[in-house]
C-alpha cells in the first residue's frame, strides 16, 4: 500500500486553479493597497457618515488608519468571505467530482481504504491554502512598502498564520458536504450557502447585541483579522475551536463515507 499518492494527485489536479486564484488575489490586494493614498483623506468623512456604532464589520472603527483600511476592504470581505467561499467550493468537489464522474469506481478498485481516500483528498487541498496565504502576505507587505505606508509585519504574519486553521475549517465543511452530496454543483452551492449563512449570522450578532449568541455558529467568529492586524490580539481559544471543528468534520466525513454505498446512478 502506498500513501500520499492521492493527496499528491489532488494537489496536481487543483494546481492550475490554485495559480489562477492566487494571481487574482494578488491583483485584488495590489489594487486596494495602491488606492489607499488617494482614499486616505476621504476616509474620515466616510467614517462619520457610516455610523460606526451599528457596524457589522469588525474593526470598522479603525478604517481611517492603513491597517484598519486593509482590514475593512481586504480581510473582512475578500479574505474571510470571498476566499472562504472559493476554498469551500473547491473542497466541496473533492469527492463529489469523483462520485458524479464515476471515476471513484476505479479509484476504489485500488488497495486503499475509504478513510485514506478522504484524508488524502483533504491533505491535497492544504498546499493551496498555504500558498495563497503566503503569496498574499508577501504582496500586501510589498505593496505597503512601495506606497510608503506602515504596517506591523508581525501582526500581518499572525493574521495570515491564524487564517490557515480558519480556511482548513471551511475546507472541512466543503469536504463533509462533498462526501454526502453526489452532484458537484449541488455540493458547491450548499457549501457556499453555508459559508454565506455563517457570515450573515455573524453580522447579525454584531449588529444587534441581543443576538450576540448567533455569532457562535459562524466559523468567522473564531477568526478575527481585525483584532490581529490592528492590535495584534490573537484569539487562542478561537484557534482551538477551529482545530477541534476540523477534526470533528474529518471524523464525520470518514465515518459517513465508510458506510455509504457507491451506487450507479
Amino acid at each position, binding site marked *: 500500500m502506498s500513501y500520499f499518492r*492521492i493527496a499528491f494527485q489532488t494537489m496536481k489536479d487543483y494546481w492550475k486553479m490554485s495559480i489562477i486564484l492566487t494571481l487574482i488575489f494578488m491583483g485584488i490586494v495590489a489594487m486596494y493597497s495602491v488606492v489607499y493614498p488617494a482614499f486616505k483623506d476621504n476616509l474620515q468623512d466616510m467614517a462619520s457618515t457610516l455610523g460606526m456604532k451599528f457596524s457589522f464589520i469588525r474593526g470598522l472603527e479603525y478604517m481611517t488608519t492603513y491597517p484598519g483600511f486593509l482590514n475593512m476592504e481586504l480581510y473582512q470581505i475578500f479574505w474571510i468571505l470571498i476566499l472562504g467561499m472559493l476554498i469551500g467550493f473547491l473542497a466541496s468537489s473533492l469527492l463529489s467530482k469523483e462520485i458524479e464522474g*464515476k*471515476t471513484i469506481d*476505479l479509484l476504489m*478498485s*485500488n*488497495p*486503499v481504504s475509504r478513510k485514506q481516500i478522504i484524508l488524502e483528498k483533504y491533505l491535497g487541498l492544504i498546499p493551496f491554502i498555504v500558498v495563497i496565504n503566503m503569496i498574499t502576505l508577501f504582496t500586501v507587505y510589498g505593496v505597503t512598502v512601495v506606497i510608503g505606508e506602515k504596517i506591523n509585519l508581525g501582526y500581518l504574519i499572525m493574521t495570515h498564520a491564524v487564517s490557515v486553521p480558519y480556511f482548513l475549517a471551511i475546507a472541512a465543511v466543503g469536504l463533509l458536504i462533498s462526501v454526502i452530496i453526489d452532484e458537484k454543483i449541488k455540493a458547491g452551492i450548499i457549501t457556499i450557502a453555508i459559508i454565506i449563512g455563517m457570515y450573515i449570522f455573524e453580522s447579525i450578532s454584531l449588529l444587534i447585541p441581543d443576538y450576540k449568541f448567533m455569532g457562535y455558529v459562524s466559523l468567522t467568529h473564531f477568526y478575527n483579522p481585525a483584532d490581529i492586524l490592528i492590535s495584534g490580539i490573537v484569539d487562542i481559544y478561537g484557534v482551538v475551536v477551529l482545530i477541534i471543528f476540523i477534526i470533528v468534520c474529518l471524523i464525520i466525513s470518514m465515518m459517513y463515507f465508510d458506510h455509504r454505498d*457507491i451506487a450507479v446512478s
Partner: protein
Amino acid sequence: MITQTVTCPSCKTRITVQGNPGERIYITCPQCFIKGTFIFPEEKLITKTTVNAIETQNLTKFYGKNKGIENLTFSVKKGEIFGFLGPNGSGKTTTIRTLLGLLKPTSGEAYIFGRSIRDDIVEIKKNIGYIPGDLNLYGHLTGKQFLDYFISLRDTNATLLDELLHVFEIPSDRTIKEYSKGMKQKLGIIQAFMNDPEIVIMDEPTSGLDPLLQQSFYEFLKKEKTKGRTIFFSSHVLSEIDKICDRVAIIRDGSLVALEDIETLKRKSGKIIKAKIKENSETFPGPEDMKIKDNWIQFVVSDNIDQWIKKLAKFTILDLEISEFNLEDIFIHYYEE
C-alpha cells in the same frame, strides 16, 4: 471471532476463550487462579488449492426496499473463466459492485481468495483487477499519467504493462478526454491487468470494442487463463460467454437461475427438433411444450431422441432439422418461465 480451548499450564484445566485473530487476552485460570496471556493465532494461511477465487453465501443487497440481488450463492474456481450472464437490470452490476466493496451487502457473505469482503476489502483489492461496466477515466490526465498514478497507488512494478501496451495500443501521450470509446476501453483493460492480479472482474468489458478488437480480447483472455489467472466476466451477450467461458451463472431478477458448465448446460438442454410434415401439424402427438409455427413443428428433446424420431417416421416428412441447443435457447428457456 474464533473460539479456542486453552490448557492451564499448571493445573491442566481446559478454558474456552473467544477473540479475534491476533488479539491478545488475559486469562485467569478458574481452578488455580494463575494469570497468563493468550494470543489468538493470525488468520490461517489458506492453501491456494483449496480456496475458491470467489465464494458467495446468500449474498443479498437491497437498495432501501428495492431488490438488487437476493440470496446469491455461487463460487468461482481458481483459474477459470466464469461467465455471469443476465440481461440489463438483472443484478450483474450490483453483484460485482458488492464484491468490490463499492456497495455494502445487506446480508450474506462473500469471500475472495478466502478473505471476507466485509473485513478485508483493502487486502483483497491487492489481488483484483477491475473493469467497470460504465468505465469513466480521468479525462484531464494523459493515458500515461493515469497509468502512472494507478501504478503508484498499488506500489507495484506493473510487470505486464509493456506487454499490454503492445497488445492494446493506445495514444498514451494524449489526454484521455480525446480518446474514443474503444481507446478508453483498452486503457481500462490495461489498468486491470497490468499489476498481474490473481483475478480480474469485468462488467461487460467488450461493450465499447469493435468486432476485431473483441476478437483479440477473447484471444487475450484465453491466454491469460492458461497463465492461471481467474476471470469473472459479466455479459448480456450470449455468444461471447459461449465462446470463452468455462462455466456460466445465469442471473434473473437478482437471483441465480442456473450455474453450470457450459457444455453440461447445453447437453442437458438437449436438441431442438424442427419438422415439416405433409399431414396436419396439429395431429402430431408431440410433447406438451411443442410449438407450431408456419406449419413447422418444433420441440426440444433431451435424452429420448429415438422415440421422437420413430413417432415422426409415421408421418410424411417434408423437411427436418435437428440442431444443437445453443446458449441463446437456454437463456430464453430460463427467461420464459
